């Protein structure tokens, strides 16, 4: 197999693998930009994966079948919104410690998805899922065609979400409010911005995106559901937000780096490596750390109010 071919495979698979992480991490970015650190991303992804899987699983034939996937995505996002709002109630209204609440949400999401699946469906079950969609014309481009233009529709959506997120954050009034609330909530409050409302909104959006990330896993990537399908990807998504330094561009870079490394290590194994495969499996994780350690540029500190519950009357 030629090197070019290998490169093309690694790139197209890397892009394909990156989307769940990308969506969830972009959502988490909104949470954190608004000052809330949601470690429960994993739980939301579990619920998203499960609920997205439900309609296509239940409606396999009949006139409604073509809509089942769409209904799945909608359900996943709706569940994400609800869980995001639940997290908001706990961390914004009750101002509970965000880290621990996040772990609680992770357990809850995983648990509910797993319990319902186990008792009503059971086993490990596939669905037809969403097929790749070739962009006419563009998909025939050499190298770039298969890498970028012969992918799942959600892949395009996720990559369009990157500039969209940037625009939302930096060019819209809502983005302005989010950034203000995450950096200096008191200042925002003193100008009549409701910190609570903005955080609720950001958590709802973040939840929707995490839910969609989970839906990508079950409907587009694995095309199946099983208990613990998400298997820690939510935590990696959270870590990628730090890697990407709270910028959509950094996050897409991190998601791609991680997923390309994953695709690369799998290709390496498939190509027949001469060292224990465990070290290949470690590669993406180690690479992310190493890149950050080497980058070491100006320490962009996160949103200043990240992790700090806000209350008007509480002394700063």
């Amino acid at each position, binding site marked *: 197999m030629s090197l070019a071919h290998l490169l093309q495979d690694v790139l197209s698979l890397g892009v394909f693998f990156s989307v769940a992480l990308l969506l969830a991490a972009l959502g988490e970015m909104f949470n954190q930009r608004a000052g809330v650190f949601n470690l429960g991303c994993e*739980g939301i992804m579990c619920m998203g994966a499960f609920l997205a899987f439900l309609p296509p699983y239940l409606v396999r034939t009949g006139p409604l079948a073509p809509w089942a996937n769409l209904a799945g995505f909608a359900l996943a996002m709706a569940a994400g919104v609800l869980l995001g709002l*639940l997290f908001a*109630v*706990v961390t914004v209204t*009750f*101002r*509970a*410690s965000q*880290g*621990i*609440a996040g*772990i*609680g*949400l*992770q*357990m*809850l*999401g*995983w*648990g*509910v*998805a*797993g*319990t*319902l699946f*186990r*008792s*009503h469906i059971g086993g490990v079950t596939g669905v037809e899922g969403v097929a790749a969609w070739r962009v006419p014309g563009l998909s025939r481009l050499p190298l770039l065609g298969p890498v970028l233009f012969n992918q799942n529709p959600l892949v395009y959506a996720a990559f369009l979400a990157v500039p969209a997120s940037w625009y939302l954050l930096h060019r819209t009034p809502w983005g302005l409010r989010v950034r203000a609330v995450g950096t200096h909530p008191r200042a925002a409050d003193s100008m009549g911005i409701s910190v609570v409302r903005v955080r609720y909104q950001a958590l709802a959006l973040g939840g929707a995106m995490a839910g969609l990330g989970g839906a990508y896993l079950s409907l587009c990537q694995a095309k199946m559901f099983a*208990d613990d399908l998400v298997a*820690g990807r939510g*935590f*990696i998504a*959270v*870590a*990628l937000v*730090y*890697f990407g330094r709270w910028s959509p561009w950094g996050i897409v870079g991190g998601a791609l780096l991680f997923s390309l490394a994953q695709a690369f290590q799998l290709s390496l194994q498939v190509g027949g490596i001469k060292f*224990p495969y*465990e*070290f290949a*499996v*470690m590669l993406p*994780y*180690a690479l*992310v*750390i190493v890149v*950050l*350690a080497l980058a*070491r540029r100006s*320490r962009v500190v996160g949103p200043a109010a990240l992790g700090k*519950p806000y*209350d008007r*009357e*509480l002394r700063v």
Partner: protein
Amino acid sequence: MPRFRLLYAGAVVLLAALAAAGAGALVLAAIGKSPWATYAVILTGPLQDLFGATEILVRAVPLILVALGIAISFRSGILNIGAEGQLMVGVLAATAVALALPGLPRPALLPLCLAAGAASGALWGGIAGVLRAWLGVNEILSTVMLNYIAAQLYTFLLRGPMIDPDELMTGSGTPQSVRLPRSAWLDRLVPGTRLHAGLLLALALAACVWLLLWRTTLGYRMRAAGAGSKAARYAGIRVERSLLVAMLFAGGFAGLAGAVEVLGVHHRAIEGISSGYGFAGIVVALFGGLHPAGIVPAAVFFGLLLVGADMTQRSAGVPANMILVLQGVIILAIVSARMALRDAYAQERAARLVRRLFPARGATPARAAPGDPAP
């Protein structure tokens, strides 16, 4: 006012308990199981006999140890999510030492194994500490990633260099080590149960951590660096070093938890040894208010939850994942309630609300009573 405070606390706790139980019941109803029966088993099942009760403590031991380390690191301004990996490394090191020096007498071997577990965990945690302190790599990122790396290292060693030769010879090939020599086992405290001397170690260390954090210069330094890194630096404390030391402690405790688990319960390094103690330990630490005196009961409570929820599978036919649901809702309810309880502002606001709703009782008695003409 004290009466109001009591009422307030009671109301908050009651509401939280109701919310948690209600949410859990919702899911139980969705799968057609009786919430009452399930809850009854969880809360009372493990306490029916000595074995169940000791099992709670068996779970509590690693939880206490991990949580103590987490408490040190959180208090020192570093968020250690990597206990899971540190624990695994600790298992490996303790096993390796026990297997390498089987001839050593027990009083030498056992401490050596424990120390090896702690040291290797510290080393693993130290990586994240160095990355954070001197290279500015966020510790959440590095510890999450290091967990995955540790998991792979674990299987690599157990599948390769550390595998039980019998496994190879017989062809079973299961990635696990040889059984440790008996001289490296922690004593069982109660015959017929799995409760082991690790409990005493954990309790003793809880006291030590309290001493360390609030009674020593080192603890003072770490807490200062965590609570106000800038002021600490201005006062001549080397904050980077403190971060590293804190991570060494955190990793050390998690590594020790691994060592204790393998020396006390499993007696050989096997797959799935951690049972998610690394994450549960974070929860326990925060539950316990990052204070040893809170961590110990919190760990026991979580032990009860784990053992009890596990029993519901067998006695009520509830799927295993229900454990997660219950843990999740309980965590969410309790953290919310804890904030509400500790938050003097919320309490004031509630008091105000009560006064507004029931003006006769809240605001006026002082004024109304003397002026009240006797009927």
